[in-house]
């Protein structure tokens, strides 16, 4: 009799123990989570949102307050989780594809987006909620996240690429950045800067393709052909990298810790004034205001140098598409909210105010009271007004396509090819031919 009791007790305790295990492990995703209330009432629907950029959460917080005030019967609480770039995309990919554990709303970076569009996308088409904003926002930004006529992601910004010059270093060297029009001018200025100050004019990027992209865009070329097939060993690409390599050989540009301007190590290098220029999309402004505070009042924004006069002076770099997953708790609510938070005029104004991005509703670009607001942190930080430059180049912003081959192209160039060229001095044509072979092999 005693034995039976003992066995029953053991079994019972095991069940309790196991049940306890099950409960505690559910709903845990690493990363920092916080629930944004936005003035929502008791009945509000809680939606989860994953992102890899902490700042994006700040924008959503502002828009959430406005949404909840305007829609008392459809209020939302947003559970924001911020994870590192790779982690978030990997987790999201698995969650979305298996249909288990995905958030309701997520940010997907442009370079990773094609992976999520493969086959039958497990994301909700957003055509109906984007429709009312057509004509007010840049169409190519909607097309960027589309497949077979369906829009799957809502863009945050144009990402017009510009040059960020450190005027303090340039003044020491007696260089006026306004006179730099071509890369030849840039080279002359750079040689002068290196001779006078011992500092580099710019970076030779090894872990990102911003520079290669902008030089391809200037030549109306791309990493892929019209059919989306990879082409990284074109004459245009060779010309671009040969020019950059020549700059490196003349001590005008140099590789940087971290491999490109948008990394923690590079923020430190720029902050200590070791490099005078970064060629980056406009969103790099937020990195200056957040991570390079010492440079406040010293950084000027200007159009990019060009290979030949008359070429387009910018291209739209990077981007994030906000998506709604198929497993979202309330698909329509999530869709309506992200359209409101990213495409409405109000949202576009806030995207500039909070994030310092160039909004895709270009009518904001003409709103002087918004773009030249003296209290705006970005207006205060930079030597000249970003929108004066943006409006000057607004007709010259080319696009680099994002295709299903893009993630592979990006991976090969950023891990192998650019390092071989700028770190090891490998022959450019050879390095690019090898890259082409490797990319084709991986895409087989």
């Amino acid at each position, binding site marked *: 009799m005693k034995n039976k009791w003992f066995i029953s007790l053991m079994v019972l305790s095991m069940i309790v123990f196991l049940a306890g295990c099950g409960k505690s492990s559910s709903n845990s995703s690493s990363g920092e989570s916080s629930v944004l209330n936005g003035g929502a009432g008791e009945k509000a629907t809680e939606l989860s949102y994953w992102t890899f950029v902490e700042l994006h959460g700040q924008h959503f917080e502002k828009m959430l307050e406005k949404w909840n005030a305007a829609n008392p019967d459809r209020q939302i609480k947003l559970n924001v989780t911020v994870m590192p770039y790779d982690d978030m995309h*990997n987790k999201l990919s*698995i969650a979305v594809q298996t*249909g288990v554990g995905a958030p309701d709303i997520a940010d997907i970076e442009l370079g990773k987006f094609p992976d999520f569009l*493969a086959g039958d996308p497990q994301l909700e088409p957003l055509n109906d909620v984007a429709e009312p904003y057509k004509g007010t926002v840049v169409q190519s930004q909607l097309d960027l996240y589309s497949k077979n006529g369906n829009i799957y992601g809502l863009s945050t910004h144009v990402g017009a690429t510009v040059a960020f010059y450190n005027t303090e270093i340039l003044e020491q060297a007696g260089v006026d950045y306004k006179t730099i029009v071509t890369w030849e001018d840039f080279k002359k200025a750079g040689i002068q800067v290196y001779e006078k100050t011992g500092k580099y004019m710019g970076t030779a990027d090894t872990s990102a393709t911003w520079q290669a992209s902008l030089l391809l865009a200037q030549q109306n070329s791309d990493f892929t052909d019209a059919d989306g097939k990879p082409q990284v060993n074109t004459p245009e690409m060779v010309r671009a990298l040969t020019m950059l390599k020549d700059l490196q050989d003349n001590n005008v540009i140099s590789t940087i810790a971290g491999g490109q301007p948008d990394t923690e190590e590079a923020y430190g290098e720029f902050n200590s004034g070791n490099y005078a220029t970064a060629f980056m999309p406009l969103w790099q402004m937020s990195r200056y205001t957040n991570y390079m505070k010492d440079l406040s009042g010293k950084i000027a924004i200007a159009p990019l140098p060009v290979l030949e006069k008359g070429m387009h002076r910018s291209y739209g770099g990077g981007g994030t598409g906000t998506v709604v997953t198929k497993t979202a708790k309330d698909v329509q609510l999530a869709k309506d909210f992200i359209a409101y938070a990213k495409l409405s005029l109000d949202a576009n104004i806030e995207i500039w105010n909070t994030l310092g991005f160039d909004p895709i509703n270009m009518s904001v670009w003409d709103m002087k009271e918004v773009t030249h607001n003296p209290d705006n942190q970005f207006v205060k930080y930079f030597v000249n007004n970003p929108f004066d430059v943006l409006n000057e180049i607004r007709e010259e912003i080319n696009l680099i396509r994002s295709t299903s081959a893009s993630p592979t192209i990006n*991976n090969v160039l950023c*891990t*192998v090819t650019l390092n071989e060229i700028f*770190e090891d001095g490998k022959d450019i044509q050879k390095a690019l031919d090898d890259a082409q072979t*490797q990319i084709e092999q*991986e895409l087989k």
Partner: protein
Amino acid sequence: MIKNFLYSQKVAPYVFVLPFVLVFIIFWVYPLLSSFGMSFQKVTLGQEAHFIGADNYTKLMGDTIFFKAVRNSAVYMLLTLVILIPFPMLFAVLINNKSMWAREFFKSAFFFPALTSVVVAGTIFRLMFGEMEGSLINSILGVFGVEPVKFLKGQTTGFIALVALATWRWMGVNMLYFLSGLKNIPDDYYEAASIDGASAFQRFTRITVPLLKPTTIYVLTISIYAGLAMFIESMMLWNGNNSPKNIGLTIVGYLYRQGIEKNNLGYAAAVGIVLLLITMVINLTQLAFSGMFKKEED
């Protein structure tokens, strides 16, 4: 009825080994068979899988990055074997020596790194081996007038950092294995040898090393496996799975890149099967050579 069943001498052993067998089948045999099957398919999560024959394997044989990963893993494994077997053995002997000063302190000091998470350790080593002048190793080299080295961008220097991390982390653990092995060697042997006039070196080579053989083989076996399966150390050191020129890419890293990052699970399964084969072949050969399959002599 149940009582008879549970108390039966024939059934009881099976009941007791059942949990192990179940765990083995569910978490080892089933995944192994299923990934073997997957390696002959094109599997993309969320889409229908379809059979493609040996395509994944033929693609793998032409994949230079995969071979780079195999080479990296093999070199890493060899380096860890060369460092992490003789040195821990030597230190264990030193610490085991009764005349050694502060033995307990050294034991815990050597073991301490094993308690640190790889994530933290990898991050700290990444900062230490940073390419800027101010990073720890470069500032030490600077004292001797050496120019800053871009450690994590070169194959050799990158591996120095990687092996330094492995050594720092695993030295203590292997030492502990050897210490426990040493405890099993009776003191009488050493006494007898001393009386016969054997030197310390002779005692070490003739008594300690041969009697530590089972421990050494155990450490060797797990080190081969750990070396080939290394992943997180590299991932933390290079802050991601994509090191410059893939200098830190390992077989498991490549499996992760294909399966998780590129959502190409069939191909990743093929990588996994090849890794299993390599590990099995090396370990079985090693065990056969060291005589572990022979019957124990009475």
